[in-house]
Protein backbone atom coordinates (compact mmCIF):
# COMPACT_ATOMS: atom_id res chain seq x y z
CA UNK A 1 0.00 0.00 0.00
CA UNK A 2 1.26 3.47 -0.84
CA UNK A 3 2.26 5.78 1.98
CA UNK A 4 -0.56 8.20 1.22
CA UNK A 5 -3.15 5.43 1.25
CA UNK A 6 -1.76 4.08 4.49
CA UNK A 7 -1.97 7.50 6.10
CA UNK A 8 -5.55 7.88 4.87
CA UNK A 9 -6.45 4.54 6.38
CA UNK A 10 -4.73 5.45 9.63
CA UNK A 11 -6.71 8.67 9.88
CA UNK A 12 -9.94 6.88 9.12
CA UNK A 13 -9.28 4.13 11.65
CA UNK A 14 -8.41 6.57 14.43
CA UNK A 15 -11.46 8.69 13.67
CA UNK A 16 -13.99 5.87 13.39
CA UNK A 17 -12.77 3.19 15.78
CA UNK A 18 -14.90 4.43 18.69
CA UNK A 19 -18.06 4.76 16.59
CA UNK A 20 -17.58 1.31 15.12
CA UNK A 21 -17.11 -0.16 18.59
CA UNK A 22 -20.32 1.47 19.82
CA UNK A 23 -22.30 0.07 16.92
CA UNK A 24 -20.71 -3.33 17.46
CA UNK A 25 -21.67 -3.16 21.14
CA UNK A 26 -25.30 -2.60 20.24
CA UNK A 27 -25.09 -5.55 17.89
CA UNK A 28 -23.55 -8.00 20.32
CA UNK A 29 -24.17 -6.52 23.78
CA UNK A 30 -20.63 -7.03 25.06
CA UNK A 31 -17.80 -4.49 25.02
CA UNK A 32 -15.02 -7.09 24.65
CA UNK A 33 -16.68 -8.74 21.68
CA UNK A 34 -17.40 -5.29 20.29
CA UNK A 35 -13.70 -4.45 20.46
CA UNK A 36 -12.82 -7.69 18.63
CA UNK A 37 -15.41 -6.99 15.96
CA UNK A 38 -14.10 -3.47 15.47
CA UNK A 39 -10.48 -4.68 15.13
CA UNK A 40 -11.42 -7.46 12.72
CA UNK A 41 -13.49 -5.08 10.61
CA UNK A 42 -10.64 -2.58 10.37
CA UNK A 43 -8.25 -5.38 9.38
CA UNK A 44 -10.56 -6.37 6.56
CA UNK A 45 -10.97 -2.75 5.59
CA UNK A 46 -7.19 -2.38 5.36
CA UNK A 47 -7.04 -5.31 2.91
CA UNK A 48 -9.69 -3.63 0.73
CA UNK A 49 -8.52 -0.06 1.10
CA UNK A 50 -7.02 0.00 -2.40
CA UNK A 51 -10.48 -0.31 -3.95
CA UNK A 52 -11.10 3.13 -5.36
CA UNK A 53 -14.87 2.90 -5.42
CA UNK A 54 -15.05 2.77 -1.61
CA UNK A 55 -12.72 5.66 -0.91
CA UNK A 56 -15.54 8.14 -1.20
CA UNK A 57 -17.68 6.25 1.31
CA UNK A 58 -15.35 4.41 3.65
CA UNK A 59 -17.80 4.78 6.55
CA UNK A 60 -20.55 2.96 4.69
CA UNK A 61 -18.13 0.22 3.68
CA UNK A 62 -16.82 -0.07 7.24
CA UNK A 63 -20.39 -0.44 8.56
CA UNK A 64 -21.06 -3.13 5.98
CA UNK A 65 -17.89 -5.00 6.92
CA UNK A 66 -18.73 -4.70 10.61
CA UNK A 67 -22.22 -6.07 10.10
CA UNK A 68 -21.00 -8.98 7.99
CA UNK A 69 -18.26 -9.77 10.47
CA UNK A 70 -20.76 -9.86 13.33
CA UNK A 71 -23.27 -11.99 11.42
CA UNK A 72 -20.47 -14.38 10.40
CA UNK A 73 -19.34 -14.62 14.00
CA UNK A 74 -22.88 -15.42 15.13
CA UNK A 75 -23.16 -18.20 12.56
CA UNK A 76 -20.09 -19.98 13.88
CA UNK A 77 -21.09 -22.89 16.11
CA UNK A 78 -18.49 -22.13 18.79
CA UNK A 79 -19.81 -18.58 19.02
CA UNK A 80 -23.36 -19.60 19.77
CA UNK A 81 -24.57 -17.80 22.81
CA UNK A 82 -25.05 -19.63 26.04
CA UNK A 83 -28.68 -20.18 27.00
CA UNK A 84 -28.99 -18.17 30.20
CA UNK A 85 -32.52 -19.00 31.29
CA UNK A 86 -31.72 -20.35 34.74
CA UNK A 87 -32.39 -18.66 38.06
CA UNK A 88 -29.66 -16.19 38.95
CA UNK A 89 -28.67 -15.93 42.60
CA UNK A 90 -29.68 -12.67 44.22
CA UNK A 91 -26.42 -10.95 45.06
CA UNK A 92 -26.13 -7.38 46.26
CA UNK A 93 -24.31 -5.03 43.87
CA UNK A 94 -22.05 -2.96 46.09
CA UNK A 95 -21.18 -0.55 43.28
CA UNK A 96 -24.78 0.33 42.56
CA UNK A 97 -25.89 3.59 43.99
CA UNK A 98 -29.66 3.80 44.49
CA UNK A 99 -29.54 7.47 43.64
CA UNK A 100 -27.94 6.82 40.25
CA UNK A 101 -29.99 3.80 39.44
CA UNK A 102 -32.93 5.96 38.63
CA UNK A 103 -35.66 5.47 36.21
CA UNK A 104 -33.61 6.58 33.19
CA UNK A 105 -30.88 4.09 33.89
CA UNK A 106 -33.42 1.39 34.46
CA UNK A 107 -35.14 2.15 31.16
CA UNK A 108 -31.84 2.23 29.33
CA UNK A 109 -30.82 -1.20 30.55
CA UNK A 110 -34.28 -2.51 29.89
CA UNK A 111 -34.23 -1.43 26.25
CA UNK A 112 -30.74 -2.74 25.74
CA UNK A 113 -31.62 -6.08 27.29
CA UNK A 114 -34.73 -6.26 25.12
CA UNK A 115 -32.70 -5.40 22.01
CA UNK A 116 -30.57 -8.47 22.58
CA UNK A 117 -33.71 -10.59 22.32
CA UNK A 118 -34.46 -9.31 18.83
CA UNK A 119 -33.26 -11.57 15.95
CA UNK A 120 -29.85 -10.50 14.58
CA UNK A 121 -30.86 -8.98 11.24
CA UNK A 122 -33.82 -7.10 12.75
CA UNK A 123 -31.54 -5.91 15.53
CA UNK A 124 -29.02 -4.67 12.98
CA UNK A 125 -31.71 -2.74 11.13
CA UNK A 126 -32.88 -1.10 14.35
CA UNK A 127 -29.35 -0.11 15.35
CA UNK A 128 -28.48 1.28 11.93
CA UNK A 129 -31.73 3.21 11.63
CA UNK A 130 -32.22 4.51 15.19
CA UNK A 131 -28.67 4.65 16.53
CA UNK A 132 -26.71 5.50 13.40
CA UNK A 133 -29.67 7.50 12.03
CA UNK A 134 -29.11 6.16 8.53
CA UNK A 135 -31.73 6.53 5.84
CA UNK A 136 -33.44 3.41 4.55
CA UNK A 137 -31.35 3.42 1.35
CA UNK A 138 -28.04 3.33 3.23
CA UNK A 139 -29.28 0.65 5.59
CA UNK A 140 -30.23 -1.40 2.52
CA UNK A 141 -26.69 -0.99 1.16
CA UNK A 142 -25.15 -2.02 4.47
CA UNK A 143 -27.48 -5.00 4.82
CA UNK A 144 -27.18 -6.04 1.18
CA UNK A 145 -30.93 -6.15 0.67
CA UNK A 146 -33.72 -4.05 -0.83
CA UNK A 147 -35.25 -0.99 0.81
CA UNK A 148 -38.55 -2.86 1.12
CA UNK A 149 -36.83 -5.56 3.12
CA UNK A 150 -35.33 -2.89 5.38
CA UNK A 151 -38.76 -1.41 6.06
CA UNK A 152 -40.35 -4.77 6.78
CA UNK A 153 -37.44 -5.81 9.01
CA UNK A 154 -37.72 -2.49 10.86
CA UNK A 155 -41.43 -2.98 11.49
CA UNK A 156 -40.92 -6.57 12.68
CA UNK A 157 -37.96 -5.56 14.80
CA UNK A 158 -39.94 -2.83 16.54
CA UNK A 159 -42.80 -5.24 17.30
CA UNK A 160 -40.33 -7.80 18.68
CA UNK A 161 -38.52 -5.15 20.71
CA UNK A 162 -41.73 -3.78 22.23
CA UNK A 163 -42.86 -7.27 23.13
CA UNK A 164 -39.48 -8.00 24.72
CA UNK A 165 -39.57 -4.73 26.68
CA UNK A 166 -43.05 -5.50 28.00
CA UNK A 167 -42.05 -9.01 28.95
CA UNK A 168 -38.94 -7.84 30.76
CA UNK A 169 -40.87 -5.01 32.41
CA UNK A 170 -43.47 -7.46 33.72
CA UNK A 171 -40.76 -9.74 35.03
CA UNK A 172 -39.06 -6.89 36.88
CA UNK A 173 -42.32 -5.74 38.39
CA UNK A 174 -43.20 -9.25 39.52
CA UNK A 175 -39.71 -9.77 40.98
CA UNK A 176 -39.85 -6.55 42.87
Amino acid sequence: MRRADEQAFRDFAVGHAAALRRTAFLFCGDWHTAEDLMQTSLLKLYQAWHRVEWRDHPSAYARKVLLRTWLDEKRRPWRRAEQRDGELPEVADSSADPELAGERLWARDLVHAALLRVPPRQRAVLVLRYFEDLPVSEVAVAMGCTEGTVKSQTARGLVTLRAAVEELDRGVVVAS
Partner: protein
Amino acid sequence: MSEAELRKSLRAAVGDEPPLDFDADALIERAQGVRAARRRRRALVAVGAATVVLMGTVLSLPGVLSARDVVQVDALTGRVLTTAPVGAVPSGTSPSSFAKPTSSVPASVAPPGVTTSADPASRRLTALSGYLADRFAAVVPGVWDVRVEFADDRAKPAAGLASGFVHFEDDEGSGGVVVRLTGPPTAFTRDDFCAGVRCEHQQKRADGSVVEFATSSSGSSPDVVSHSVAHFRADGTVVQVTGYNYDPAQGGKTRDVVPVTLDQLLILATDPRLDLR
Protein backbone atom coordinates in the same frame (compact mmCIF):
# COMPACT_ATOMS: atom_id res chain seq x y z
CA MET B 1 -42.28 2.75 22.93
CA SER B 2 -41.88 5.46 20.36
CA GLU B 3 -39.03 5.74 17.87
CA ALA B 4 -37.72 8.80 19.73
CA GLU B 5 -37.59 6.85 22.98
CA LEU B 6 -35.79 4.05 21.20
CA ARG B 7 -33.19 6.49 19.86
CA LYS B 8 -32.72 7.94 23.31
CA SER B 9 -32.37 4.52 24.93
CA LEU B 10 -29.84 3.33 22.37
CA ARG B 11 -27.71 6.43 22.90
CA ALA B 12 -27.95 5.90 26.64
CA ALA B 13 -27.00 2.21 26.30
CA VAL B 14 -23.51 3.15 25.16
CA GLY B 15 -23.16 5.76 27.87
CA ASP B 16 -20.96 3.59 30.05
CA GLU B 17 -18.49 2.98 27.24
CA PRO B 18 -15.06 1.92 28.53
CA PRO B 19 -12.03 3.93 27.36
CA LEU B 20 -10.77 2.96 23.92
CA ASP B 21 -7.18 1.80 23.71
CA PHE B 22 -6.76 1.77 19.97
CA ASP B 23 -3.34 1.71 18.24
CA ALA B 24 -3.68 2.23 14.49
CA ASP B 25 -0.02 1.44 13.83
CA ALA B 26 -0.28 -1.91 15.60
CA LEU B 27 -3.37 -2.69 13.57
CA ILE B 28 -1.62 -1.83 10.29
CA GLU B 29 1.36 -3.96 11.27
CA ARG B 30 -0.95 -6.86 12.02
CA ALA B 31 -2.79 -6.38 8.71
CA GLN B 32 0.49 -6.45 6.81
CA GLY B 33 1.40 -9.70 8.57
CA VAL B 34 -1.94 -11.19 7.57
CA ARG B 35 -1.35 -10.09 3.99
CA ALA B 36 2.13 -11.61 3.91
CA ALA B 37 0.83 -14.86 5.38
CA ARG B 38 -1.90 -14.95 2.74
CA ARG B 39 0.68 -14.38 0.01
CA ARG B 40 2.84 -17.18 1.38
CA ARG B 41 -0.15 -19.51 1.54
CA ARG B 42 -1.09 -18.74 -2.07
CA ALA B 43 2.48 -19.36 -3.21
CA LEU B 44 2.52 -22.66 -1.33
CA VAL B 45 -0.75 -23.78 -2.92
CA ALA B 46 0.52 -22.74 -6.38
CA VAL B 47 3.73 -24.70 -5.93
CA GLY B 48 1.77 -27.73 -4.73
CA ALA B 49 -0.60 -27.58 -7.68
CA ALA B 50 2.27 -27.19 -10.13
CA THR B 51 4.03 -30.17 -8.57
CA VAL B 52 0.92 -32.33 -8.87
CA VAL B 53 0.46 -31.35 -12.54
CA LEU B 54 4.12 -32.02 -13.27
CA MET B 55 4.05 -35.40 -11.55
CA GLY B 56 0.89 -36.35 -13.44
CA THR B 57 2.50 -35.41 -16.74
CA VAL B 58 5.72 -37.26 -15.97
CA LEU B 59 3.86 -40.39 -14.92
CA SER B 60 1.35 -40.44 -17.76
CA LEU B 61 3.52 -39.40 -20.70
CA PRO B 62 5.58 -42.62 -21.03
CA GLY B 63 2.37 -44.68 -21.02
CA VAL B 64 0.84 -42.52 -23.73
CA LEU B 65 3.94 -42.59 -25.90
CA SER B 66 4.65 -46.30 -25.52
CA ALA B 67 1.06 -47.17 -26.48
CA ARG B 68 1.75 -45.99 -30.02
CA ASP B 69 3.67 -47.71 -32.80
CA VAL B 70 4.40 -50.90 -30.91
CA VAL B 71 3.77 -54.39 -32.20
CA GLN B 72 2.03 -56.20 -29.39
CA VAL B 73 2.43 -59.97 -29.29
CA ASP B 74 0.19 -62.04 -27.10
CA ALA B 75 2.44 -64.06 -24.84
CA LEU B 76 0.30 -67.20 -24.80
CA THR B 77 -1.27 -67.32 -28.25
CA GLY B 78 1.54 -65.70 -30.18
CA ARG B 79 -0.97 -63.44 -31.94
CA VAL B 80 0.40 -60.22 -33.32
CA LEU B 81 -2.28 -57.76 -32.25
CA THR B 82 -1.46 -54.72 -34.36
CA THR B 83 -0.84 -56.13 -37.81
CA ALA B 84 -2.46 -55.73 -41.20
CA PRO B 85 -3.69 -58.89 -42.92
CA VAL B 86 -2.89 -58.68 -46.59
CA GLY B 87 -1.98 -62.26 -47.32
CA ALA B 88 -4.00 -65.26 -46.24
CA VAL B 89 -3.44 -66.92 -42.92
CA PRO B 90 -2.22 -70.52 -42.87
CA SER B 91 -5.23 -72.72 -42.29
CA GLY B 92 -3.31 -75.27 -40.34
CA THR B 93 -1.69 -72.76 -38.07
CA SER B 94 -2.28 -73.38 -34.43
CA PRO B 95 -3.25 -70.35 -32.37
CA SER B 96 -0.74 -71.45 -29.84
CA SER B 97 2.14 -71.63 -32.24
CA PHE B 98 1.90 -69.02 -34.97
CA ALA B 99 1.24 -65.33 -35.36
CA LYS B 100 -1.95 -64.24 -37.08
CA PRO B 101 -2.70 -60.80 -38.40
CA THR B 102 -5.78 -59.48 -36.64
CA SER B 103 -6.04 -55.82 -37.39
CA SER B 104 -6.37 -53.81 -40.58
CA VAL B 105 -4.23 -51.00 -39.23
CA PRO B 106 -0.63 -51.17 -40.37
CA ALA B 107 1.73 -51.15 -37.50
CA SER B 108 5.34 -50.33 -37.21
CA VAL B 109 7.79 -52.01 -34.93
CA ALA B 110 9.24 -50.06 -32.10
CA PRO B 111 13.00 -49.83 -31.79
CA PRO B 112 14.53 -52.63 -29.77
CA GLY B 113 15.13 -52.05 -26.13
CA VAL B 114 12.24 -49.63 -25.63
CA THR B 115 10.57 -50.39 -22.36
CA THR B 116 8.77 -48.13 -19.97
CA SER B 117 9.07 -49.83 -16.64
CA ALA B 118 12.21 -50.43 -14.70
CA ASP B 119 11.40 -53.71 -12.95
CA PRO B 120 13.88 -56.60 -13.32
CA ALA B 121 11.70 -58.53 -15.79
CA SER B 122 11.44 -55.51 -18.05
CA ARG B 123 15.15 -54.91 -17.85
CA ARG B 124 15.77 -58.56 -18.76
CA LEU B 125 13.46 -58.30 -21.79
CA THR B 126 15.19 -55.11 -22.86
CA ALA B 127 18.54 -56.86 -22.72
CA LEU B 128 17.09 -59.82 -24.66
CA SER B 129 15.77 -57.48 -27.35
CA GLY B 130 19.19 -55.95 -27.86
CA TYR B 131 20.93 -59.30 -27.94
CA LEU B 132 18.41 -60.92 -30.29
CA ALA B 133 18.66 -58.04 -32.77
CA ASP B 134 22.43 -58.46 -33.00
CA ARG B 135 22.24 -62.24 -33.04
CA PHE B 136 19.56 -62.33 -35.72
CA ALA B 137 21.55 -60.06 -38.00
CA ALA B 138 24.58 -62.32 -37.51
CA VAL B 139 22.72 -65.59 -38.14
CA VAL B 140 20.62 -64.41 -41.09
CA PRO B 141 22.86 -62.67 -43.62
CA GLY B 142 21.47 -60.15 -46.08
CA VAL B 143 18.98 -58.52 -43.73
CA TRP B 144 18.96 -54.98 -42.42
CA ASP B 145 16.84 -52.73 -40.27
CA VAL B 146 16.49 -55.48 -37.68
CA ARG B 147 14.26 -54.43 -34.79
CA VAL B 148 13.11 -56.53 -31.86
CA GLU B 149 10.30 -55.88 -29.44
CA PHE B 150 9.28 -57.96 -26.48
CA ALA B 151 5.84 -56.98 -25.28
CA ASP B 152 2.95 -58.40 -23.31
CA ASP B 153 -0.42 -56.71 -23.59
CA ARG B 154 -2.20 -59.00 -21.20
CA ALA B 155 -4.15 -57.40 -18.41
CA LYS B 156 -2.30 -59.64 -15.96
CA PRO B 157 1.15 -60.66 -17.23
CA ALA B 158 1.82 -64.36 -16.80
CA ALA B 159 5.02 -65.53 -15.16
CA GLY B 160 7.41 -67.59 -17.25
CA LEU B 161 6.24 -66.25 -20.60
CA ALA B 162 7.72 -63.78 -23.06
CA SER B 163 6.94 -63.20 -26.70
CA GLY B 164 9.08 -61.19 -29.03
CA PHE B 165 8.81 -60.08 -32.61
CA VAL B 166 11.80 -59.62 -34.92
CA HIS B 167 11.23 -57.26 -37.81
CA PHE B 168 13.70 -57.14 -40.65
CA GLU B 169 14.13 -56.01 -44.23
CA ASP B 170 15.79 -57.92 -47.03
CA ASP B 171 15.90 -57.79 -50.83
CA GLU B 172 12.30 -58.95 -51.15
CA GLY B 173 10.81 -56.60 -48.63
CA SER B 174 9.91 -56.77 -44.97
CA GLY B 175 9.62 -59.91 -42.90
CA GLY B 176 9.07 -61.07 -39.36
CA VAL B 177 9.98 -63.83 -36.93
CA VAL B 178 8.20 -64.59 -33.68
CA VAL B 179 10.29 -65.74 -30.73
CA ARG B 180 8.55 -67.23 -27.73
CA LEU B 181 10.22 -68.09 -24.44
CA THR B 182 8.46 -70.33 -21.93
CA GLY B 183 9.60 -71.54 -18.55
CA PRO B 184 8.31 -72.61 -15.15
CA PRO B 185 5.75 -72.05 -13.80
CA THR B 186 4.22 -71.93 -17.29
CA ALA B 187 4.18 -75.35 -18.94
CA PHE B 188 4.56 -75.79 -22.70
CA THR B 189 4.79 -79.41 -23.88
CA ARG B 190 5.70 -80.93 -27.23
CA ASP B 191 2.04 -81.91 -27.66
CA ASP B 192 1.13 -78.26 -27.27
CA PHE B 193 3.71 -77.37 -29.89
CA CYS B 194 2.52 -79.98 -32.38
CA ALA B 195 -1.20 -79.25 -31.94
CA GLY B 196 -2.59 -78.01 -35.26
CA VAL B 197 0.70 -78.10 -37.15
CA ARG B 198 2.68 -80.78 -38.91
CA CYS B 199 5.62 -81.86 -36.78
CA GLU B 200 8.24 -83.03 -39.21
CA HIS B 201 10.83 -84.66 -37.03
CA GLN B 202 12.64 -84.26 -33.75
CA GLN B 203 16.27 -84.14 -32.80
CA LYS B 204 17.62 -85.38 -29.47
CA ARG B 205 20.71 -83.57 -28.32
CA ALA B 206 23.58 -84.66 -26.14
CA ASP B 207 22.58 -82.48 -23.23
CA GLY B 208 19.20 -84.23 -22.96
CA SER B 209 17.23 -81.52 -24.70
CA VAL B 210 14.95 -82.11 -27.68
CA VAL B 211 14.38 -80.01 -30.78
CA GLU B 212 11.07 -80.21 -32.66
CA PHE B 213 10.57 -79.02 -36.24
CA ALA B 214 7.12 -78.17 -37.53
CA THR B 215 5.69 -76.76 -40.71
CA SER B 216 2.34 -75.21 -41.45
CA SER B 217 0.84 -74.61 -44.84
CA SER B 218 -2.44 -73.08 -45.94
CA GLY B 219 -2.62 -75.26 -49.06
CA SER B 220 -4.23 -72.40 -50.91
CA SER B 221 -2.81 -70.14 -53.56
CA PRO B 222 -0.74 -68.27 -52.75
CA ASP B 223 0.48 -70.79 -50.23
CA VAL B 224 1.13 -69.28 -46.83
CA VAL B 225 3.86 -71.20 -45.05
CA SER B 226 5.48 -71.04 -41.68
CA HIS B 227 8.36 -72.96 -40.20
CA SER B 228 8.70 -73.41 -36.50
CA VAL B 229 11.53 -74.79 -34.39
CA ALA B 230 11.14 -75.41 -30.66
CA HIS B 231 13.98 -76.26 -28.33
CA PHE B 232 12.74 -78.14 -25.25
CA ARG B 233 15.64 -77.68 -22.90
CA ALA B 234 16.69 -79.91 -20.03
CA ASP B 235 15.94 -77.25 -17.45
CA GLY B 236 12.26 -77.13 -18.47
CA THR B 237 12.38 -73.97 -20.55
CA VAL B 238 11.29 -73.83 -24.18
CA VAL B 239 12.48 -71.49 -26.92
CA GLN B 240 10.25 -71.44 -29.98
CA VAL B 241 11.20 -69.54 -33.14
CA THR B 242 8.80 -69.24 -36.07
CA GLY B 243 9.46 -67.84 -39.53
CA TYR B 244 6.87 -66.94 -42.17
CA ASN B 245 6.82 -66.43 -45.91
CA TYR B 246 5.00 -63.14 -45.37
CA ASP B 247 5.38 -60.27 -42.94
CA PRO B 248 3.10 -61.10 -39.99
CA ALA B 249 3.25 -57.51 -38.76
CA GLN B 250 2.50 -55.62 -41.95
CA GLY B 251 1.19 -58.22 -44.36
CA GLY B 252 2.48 -57.45 -47.82
CA LYS B 253 3.27 -59.92 -50.53
CA THR B 254 3.60 -63.66 -49.96
CA ARG B 255 7.05 -65.00 -50.78
CA ASP B 256 7.89 -68.29 -52.46
CA VAL B 257 10.00 -69.45 -49.53
CA VAL B 258 10.35 -68.56 -45.89
CA PRO B 259 13.24 -66.07 -45.77
CA VAL B 260 14.69 -67.61 -42.60
CA THR B 261 15.80 -71.20 -43.15
CA LEU B 262 15.25 -74.09 -40.75
CA ASP B 263 18.96 -74.13 -39.94
CA GLN B 264 18.89 -70.47 -39.04
CA LEU B 265 15.77 -70.97 -36.93
CA LEU B 266 17.54 -73.88 -35.22
CA ILE B 267 20.58 -71.74 -34.40
CA LEU B 268 18.36 -69.11 -32.84
CA ALA B 269 16.21 -71.59 -30.90
CA THR B 270 19.22 -73.37 -29.44
CA ASP B 271 21.08 -70.21 -28.55
CA PRO B 272 21.78 -70.60 -24.80
CA ARG B 273 21.64 -66.84 -24.27
CA LEU B 274 18.02 -66.74 -25.35
CA ASP B 275 16.68 -67.52 -21.92
CA LEU B 276 14.04 -66.03 -19.65
CA ARG B 277 16.32 -66.04 -16.62
